[in-house]
């Protein structure tokens, strides 16, 4: 194969990869931003009125399953806010305001 043929073949290879991968990447981005979500065990915020302490205990002991979208999951992992339990469930490690820094 002479240089010109080789150059053309390589350029065509690049074009094929671009044609295949650019749409695939765009689809992944759109799916991730709009449709992809995961069930997360979330502890409701424990901000309860001071005159009802029993409510606080009751709230803290409850866990809710929240369908969290991927951008929110990314934001949560940047503060070390999600952990996977042995059961396979994913749990949010904080309630209310997220921590400001990652623990690592």
């Amino acid at each position, binding site marked *: 194969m*002479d*240089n*010109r043929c*080789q*150059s*053309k073949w*390589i*350029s065509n*290879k*690049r*074009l094929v*990869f*671009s044609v295949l*991968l*650019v749409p*695939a*990447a*765009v*689809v*992944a*981005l759109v*799916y*991730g*931003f709009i449709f*992809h979500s*995961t069930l997360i065990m979330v502890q409701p915020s424990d901000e309860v009125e001071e005159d009802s302490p029993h409510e606080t205990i009751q709230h803290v002991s409850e866990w809710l399953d929240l369908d969290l979208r*991927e*951008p*929110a*999951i*990314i*934001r949560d*992992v*940047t*503060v*070390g806010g*999600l*952990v*996977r339990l042995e059961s*396979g469930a*994913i749990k949010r490690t904080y309630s209310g305001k997220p921590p400001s*820094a*990652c623990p*690592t």
Partner: protein
Amino acid sequence: MVTMTKKNRLKQLTSKIVPNRIWIQLGFLLIWLDPLGWRFHSVCSPVFHCYSCPLATFACPIGVLANFSALHVFPFITVGMLVLIGILLGSIVCGWACPFGFLQDLAAKVPTPKFDPPGWTGHFRYAVLVGTVIAVPYLFGEGHWLFVCRFCPAGALEAAVPNIINRAIAGQEIAWPNALKLTILALFLMAIFLVRRPWCRILCPLGAIFALFNRTSAFFLRFDPDKCNSCERCHKLCEYGIEPEKSPNDLRCVRCLECTACSTEALTLGSIFEHREETSATPKPADSSAEI
């Protein structure tokens, strides 16, 4: 003729921007380090920059990949973003936009003796990527000491050090990073004065991902053997021990494009768009350019 003009335009652009690469890196730094406190941590930047840094604008793609692996969730946004940027630009991001690479470039300007690691050490990047970003988090979770964020020198330098200083100034109890992280940070700080871009060349998992696209990306480094007079100036221009005329789109290349300063213009920045125009708009010249 149209193609020649387009080609020349890309060539002219390259010759103008390459000498000013440091300013372009500085410009990107202002995007990644946001002093105004804007936080867009729901999306990743395409560069290696710790999201725990007090000034980080975006999330770190490697940290996100590792954490998603630990959670057993597929990171569509991060993978989509990395593939999109990789297939368009390859490792141009490493040479022009990454703040961690910029830091190493600045340190390399200090006139100390420099050593070149053997080329094969570049494969360690894939071990880091597969081992500490994907496998260890997936199998053992984020608590394992080989989880990438637990020893990442970017995290130590950009997040741990500023946080220690902040807490010390505020009179709060200091949370020291683990010994492994501190040791790797100390080694890294020594290495950047003795080796050009040691992290990027030997260990960076993000660079490893982008480098995979170097041979298939839309923009690439083109070598024209007809214009090469074998002066080997490109060997001296390349600071990473690559022989650009043999492997212009090498896996180790960070696409700083310094080698395009070749006086015979045997090495130029090319793109697939240019080639399409060439084949459709002009008669085929006796062009024997190769971009192996």
